[in-house]
């Protein structure tokens, strides 16, 4: 799978995951905490957001990409359906990705071809973001354990958190398990560790730069540590959140070449 696909997936996954302030949950079971967090995470309205991806290699900025992402909840599944269109860099402009249910299509304007992508291909790449599709974590994962833990966030500030152990509960879950830290005071997501079916740690994500977006406090940056290549760190930065009623026909693969660039 090419870099544009991976970056787009990365972008879309986190565009959704970052909108995940958790609710207070004392006395709740881990699953209830997860369910509650899903309710808060999902804005409940379709939206678009501008995304900037910057890849750091050995600590230095190496490549940057920008795209526009459109997201909308599927009422029948409770999951987001996502569309992304590349704006920069020049060589990737016009490339587009459709993610709906468990399948994905990638469009390349150079070859005029839409290519079907397997679920596993969501795991390929810089940040191995197979959870891109699963913004509603309670649907695909069950929370087996919740413990209290104090950890450092991306900025080195100590946070008192709930640590949830999420385990895949159906075939739609592309990770075997996820470790997820949620700040107890604000219920902001702080950090996630994502494991492949083999048990191997694929990536670590830190959520930061919270601000008010789409009527809620949401992280506007996600920093992802690549565990397959530990020299690589990817930062995703989200801006210009906007309510946007995405037409249903946009989720047809034939519409990919027609997605707007803004």
């Amino acid at each position, binding site marked *: 799978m090419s870099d544009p696909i991976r970056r787009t997936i990365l972008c879309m996954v986190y565009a959704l995951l970052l909108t995940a302030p958790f609710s207070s949950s004392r006395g709740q079971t881990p699953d209830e905490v997860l369910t509650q967090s899903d309710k808060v995470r999902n804005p409940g309205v379709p939206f678009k957001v501008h995304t900037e991806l910057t890849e750091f290699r050995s600590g230095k900025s190496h490549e940057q990409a920008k795209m526009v992402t459109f997201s909308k909840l599927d009422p029948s599944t409770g999951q987001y359906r996502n569309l992304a269109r590349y704006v920069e860099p020049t*060589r990737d402009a016009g490339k587009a990705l459709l993610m709906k*249910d468990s399948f994905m299509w990638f469009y390349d304007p150079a070859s005029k071809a839409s290519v079907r992508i397997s679920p596993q291909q969501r795991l390929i*790449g810089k940040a191995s973001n197979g959870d891109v599709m699963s913004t509603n974590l309670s649907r695909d994962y069950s929370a087996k354990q919740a413990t209290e833990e104090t950890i450092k966030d991306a900025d080195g500030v100590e946070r008192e958190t709930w640590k949830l152990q999420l385990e895949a509960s159906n075939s739609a879950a592309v990770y075997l398990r996820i470790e997820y830290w949620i700040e107890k005071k604000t219920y902001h997501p702080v950090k996630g560790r994502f494991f492949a079916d083999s048990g191997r740690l694929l990536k670590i994500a830190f959520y930061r730069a919270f601000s008010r977006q789409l009527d809620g406090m949401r992280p506007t940056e996600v920093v992802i540590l690549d565990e397959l290549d530990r020299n690589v760190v990817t930062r995703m930065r989200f801006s210009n959140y906007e309510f946007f009623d995405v037409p249903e026909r946009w989720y047809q*693969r034939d519409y990919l070449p027609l997605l707007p660039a803004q």
Partner: protein
Amino acid sequence: MMSKAKRTLLVVMSTITSIPLAAQEDADRIPADALRLSNEATEAVTVRSTDITAYVEVGIDTVMARAPARAPASHSRNDRVNARSAFDIRAQQRTDSGMSFYISGRGSVTAGPLDESMSTKRLDLREAFVSQVDGNGLVWKVGRVNLRNGVALGYNPTDFFRANTVVDNTTRDPVSLRESRLGTYMLDLQRIGESGSVQAVVAPRVVTNTKGLDDQPSAGLAASRTNASNRFLLRFVRDFGVDLSPEFLLFKESGRDPKIGASITRALGQQATWYAEWTAGKRERPIDAAVRFGAATGDLPQSSLRLLSGEDRRMAHELVLGGSWANASNLSVNLEFHFNQNGLSRNEWKDMFDSRVAGQLVPASLVRYARDYASVFQEPLARRSVFTRAQWEDIWVRGLSVVALGNFNVDDRSTLFQLSLDYRLDASQRIRATWQTNVGRGASQYGSLPIRQAISLTYVAYLPQ
């Protein structure tokens, strides 16, 4: 030896202390620059009404010719080294009314193309069209449009507008070849709904293709290449449920029988997808088509018409069955079986190299001509073949990818193989090394090709918008 109690204590202590340490180490790995807060005013996506993607490409090709070959080549068969350069541009201008103007082209100069069947200087207008999409999903395009159908990778039976469109032969990778091919002058109407789409395409005959294979236009509108007949396509895509959206096609070309086609693709577990693409219609035998074209354009003498088989057009099916597989180590593989009922059987390949076609003795040059014709018009000669393509990204070092592909003729057991290394220097520069070879007996599809091996080195630099 350490006691069991000591070991247990050590393990417990290590476990306890490793938890906060691991968390701390994670955060410490974040580069300081990655934590620099954004300036939204300057770092948001820049909204443009015009998109321009342009790059320059320079390269050098080394060709090792095959000798002797059973099928005589029409061009030089000497080993050679060729330098080449190209400028490639795609530009799109949008208006607030939903209208777009799109143009795409490529100019290239080479000291000698890879197989020497192409012009050394080219200026190809790949696409030039006006399009509009409205809020009801109605889309229209008018102009030269590169319309491609099909879900397979190595060959697309439903790609009805592929004939005579390839203008770059420095690679055998179908993915790359599609990027440089010519579009067709057409009117393309499409209605995209919430559960499918319907599309109608009319591509008129602009001018008859009266030029021989070696004289195909290499500059200008080149309508004789892409619009030498009237063509009509009707296409439907329909959602029948989650992950089930087949497409159905009906195609008619003037002077030929209609074709029908269909394709489908579905997930196969977490790591794979499978797909199928099929067409059927009455077709002329490939040698007959070459003879008829050669006689009409003057490439072959009129007397060559006596070599026509005399067989009626017959119903022929084309089918591609394939699948893709990927793992978490950046490796993805496609494997496809191609069946072309109108292709040459094992005996027909043998007869052809013995200068016999349909029971008649034919000049050896006709064998070469038939193969060149099939190559230009992208009509597969093989009856059964297996195609595979593997792509491994970020192999060894970040930014380095490897693409290996092979096309194996099941009937004559010859193979085309290509290996490419592509390294992304940064966001705007990349270098690529490609090795291709044709392997097989002298009397086989690939073993008889005049190019035994070729090595290409290419540097690509994208220009800023």
